[in-house]
């Protein structure tokens, strides 16, 4: 059951009405049931896997909580927690590379694996489980009630593609007698409507054009490559932030407050700022559970910090997918962050302080956007060869200004959405202008808001085509 479907709206509406109609004591159990129904709507086997991982994490957590020196046992727990992920997601990658290396050194290695289907959300609930064990080993309180813990792992709005919620962000909410008021319902509904629009209208409209540029054998030229990079950057932003909006909005309807996952990342004026605004729950996870421990372990050798930063970002890339393209994407971002902290530190600090319209601010923004777009090229490419060919098209100005893959439609759609986003979040922030204007005529504010959401709802109904899976489902 995909979020952007009428089926999901029916599921959500039914769950909402039932949830608030049943006795309070049953509510968490009800949410667990609904979450497993949601997850098993793809494949019932997924539910068994999730239940197994949940049982292990809970029991091992209880075990850690009783140890005098839990850190001694932590690595074993993390390794077991990672095993399903390694099997389902990374085993084919390792086997493929082993075969490749064997071929290079002249060994007749030819290992074959049966087709392995990647369970949805496994990367997310594995990271969530690791965070739980690490926090316990660091002295955090465990989630005591098994039912609360099962809900923490399975709660459907965050189950498939995050946000990655850490125990301390939700523990109290799980245990509390949750309540909502009109403002929560209104906010939840708004987030859901905006999420539908971002995904079904903007991201899915961009998808076929981007797919065309990155299709195997497509041989894009300079213009196509630029459009493909920018188009994919927009597609993944609207896709994933739309998903996050629906997740956060859905959770709000049941009294949960999830952490934000995006905060205008394409308005960033430094790479550090970008990672503070893009997929925030993952970047915080990488910082706290990968980078900081490595940094701490080598605290007497501060020069290694840059290496750990690149390593952590490479791990972040590898988390996204078992392909070299993702690893390179992570390394590029690691290097950009190192640059941000070293050679260009002064420049970016000035840019962050300076106004949006200042020369240094604009220069930093252009630099960040260009580098992020080039990195997207590796993220989206099907192979390093394809990414290299597209980079070469960029450098050698292949085909000049004549597109070789895209037609006018694709260029127009990508340009229009790019300019709209630019106008919205970077240059003039028209939403603020509208608010200021509406403040002068408060009677118009409600009709204008109503008209805005009416347009958004109608556009979503009319423009959504065959709903495609969210990009982040594959991670």
């Amino acid at each position, binding site marked *: *059951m*995909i979020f952007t*479907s*009428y*089926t999901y709206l*029916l599921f959500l509406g039914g769950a909402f*009405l039932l949830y*608030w*109609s*049943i*006795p*309070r004591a049953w509510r968490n159990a009800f949410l667990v049931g609904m979450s497993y129904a949601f997850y098993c*709507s*793809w*494949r019932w086997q997924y539910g068994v896997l999730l239940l197994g991982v949940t049982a292990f994490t809970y029991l091992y957590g209880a075990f850690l909580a009783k140890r005098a020196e839990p850190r001694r046992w932590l690595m074993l727990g993390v390794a077991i927690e990672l095993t399903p992920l390694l099997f389902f997601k990374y085993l084919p990658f390792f086997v493929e590379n082993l075969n490749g290396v064997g071929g290079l050194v002249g060994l007749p290695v030819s290992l074959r694996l049966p087709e392995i*289907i*990647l369970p*949805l959300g496994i990367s997310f609930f594995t990271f969530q489980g690791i965070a739980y064990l690490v926090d316990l080993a660091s002295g955090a309180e465990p989630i005591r009630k098994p039912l609360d813990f099962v809900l923490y792992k399975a709660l459907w709005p965050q189950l498939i593609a995050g946000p990655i919620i850490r125990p301390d962000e939700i523990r109290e909410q799980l245990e509390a007698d949750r309540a*909502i*008021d*009109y*403002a929560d*319902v*209104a906010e939840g509904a708004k987030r859901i409507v905006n999420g539908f629009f971002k995904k079904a209208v903007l991201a899915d409209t961009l998808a*076929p054009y981007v797919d*065309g540029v990155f*299709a*195997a*054998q*497509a*041989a894009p030229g300079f213009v196509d490559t630029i459009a493909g990079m920018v188009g994919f950057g927009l597609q993944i932003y609207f896709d994933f932030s739309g998903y996050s909006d629906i997740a956060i909005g859905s959770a709000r309807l049941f009294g949960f407050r999830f952490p934000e996952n995006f905060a205008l990342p394409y308005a960033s004026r430094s790479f550090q700022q970008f990672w503070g605004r893009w997929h925030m729950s993952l970047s915080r996870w990488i910082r706290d559970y990968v980078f900081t421990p490595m940094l701490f372990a080598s605290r007497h050798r501060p020069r290694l910090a840059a290496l750990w930063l690149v390593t952590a970002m490479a791990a972040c890339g590898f988390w996204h997918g078992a392909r070299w393209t993702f690893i390179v994407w992570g390394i590029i971002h690691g290097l950009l962050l190192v640059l941000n902290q070293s050679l260009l530190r002064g420049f970016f600090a000035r840019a962050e302080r300076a106004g949006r319209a200042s020369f240094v601010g604009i220069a930093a923004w252009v630099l960040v956007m260009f580098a992020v777009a080039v990195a997207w090229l590796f993220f989206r490419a099907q192979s390093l060869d394809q990414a290299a060919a597209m980079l070469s098209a960029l450098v050698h100005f292949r085909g000049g200004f*004549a*597109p*070789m*893959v895209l*037609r*006018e*439609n694709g260029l*127009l759609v990508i340009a229009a959405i790019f300019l709209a986003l630019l106008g919205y979040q970077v240059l003039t922030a028209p939403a603020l202008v509208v608010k200021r204007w509406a403040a002068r005529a408060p009677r118009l*504010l*409600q*009709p204008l*808001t*109503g*008209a805005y*959401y*009416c347009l958004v*709802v*109608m556009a979503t*109904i*009319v*423009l959504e*085509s*065959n*709903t*495609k*899976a*969210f990009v982040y*489902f*594959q991670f």
Partner: protein
Amino acid sequence: MNGRRWLWSIFADRRVLRGAVPWLVLLLIAANVYVALARGGWEAARDANLLAPTTDPGRHVAGAPRYDWSVGEDVASFWPKIPDATVQSVVILAGMSQMYAINDPRPGDETIVEHLDDKLRQHGVRAFGLAAPNMHNEEALLYLVAAASRPETRPAAFVYGLCFDKFRNVDLRPALQRFLRSRADVQDRLRALCAEPAGRYPRACEKIRSSLASLEDVATGTAQHDESIEGWLRDALGRAVPIIGAREALNARLQYELYLLRNWLFRIRATSKRPILHSRYELNRELLALMADVARAEGIELVLYVIPLNPQAENPYVPEEYEAFKSWSAAFADERGVPFANLEDVVPRDDWGLLGDEPDFKHFRAEGHRRTAEALVDRFGPIFVAAKGRTPAP
């Protein structure tokens, strides 16, 4: 306060009536009323579009359908109408909108395939049409493989009209994705097809693999049972909420307006020369070559022809590119031993209709359909009849 009363208290909150919600509800009601009133006009306009499937039963010749009236949108419903190839010889005619679109139609007008069926029936051979607007080679390959995969639909000959500008199209349309998803046997055959000659046809095989991958549950985001619930919900909501019911007509209208905007913005006219996109052209050439391989392996006679074009209308093709396309098609057919004809000039100027105020360069009147069918029989009749009785190996 118990749960239900508390729930009601949320909806009875004073902010509901004083906020944006009443405006939103009012505007949505107004929009739905407007759509309900205007829907008939939009649907009539959509029906008047030559390329769309017609919902007017009077436009079809009485009797069992002899081509897919849904023009690719519901091909599964028309698939059983293919004459049983185990009891008689069958010729399938596939191609783009020229196959079924009749300019200035009158009741009783027949399409190319219906004329073809009339003529071949005398020789104990039946013809059936599988056409869709802008059909390209991957879709034609899908039809060929699907038809070949069962004895009762396996044709003796598969006739495919080559249209130059369709060599720029890619991707299976959603309706054909649904059709392919429902046919596991066809998926297996396509998979097997690319297991072997992938080295010869890298582009085509990559494309086929990607089309197959997009059918999988995770990639499309929905499982089979999910899809049927979603379909039922959409139908039910479509009956109750005018905007949802008319979303396709609204979408078509909006797309048309955007198309006009694009043309205005880029100064594109119906006759503006549109250079080919080489990557797509190469992909479609490989897919055509794959069709030839499939047909040969299945014992099906693949017949190719270059479709007729209006001699009085300027077309959007770059002349050198179009000439190269025709030369390549002839050479390809010759090399593969595929029967081939260039029917570019078989329909005279008086048999073509108008597209807006200008001559339509690709869609003719009923007479054009008759002439094209006659030309096909003239060029390939002996091949169709000779194929009769030759039962391809299953």
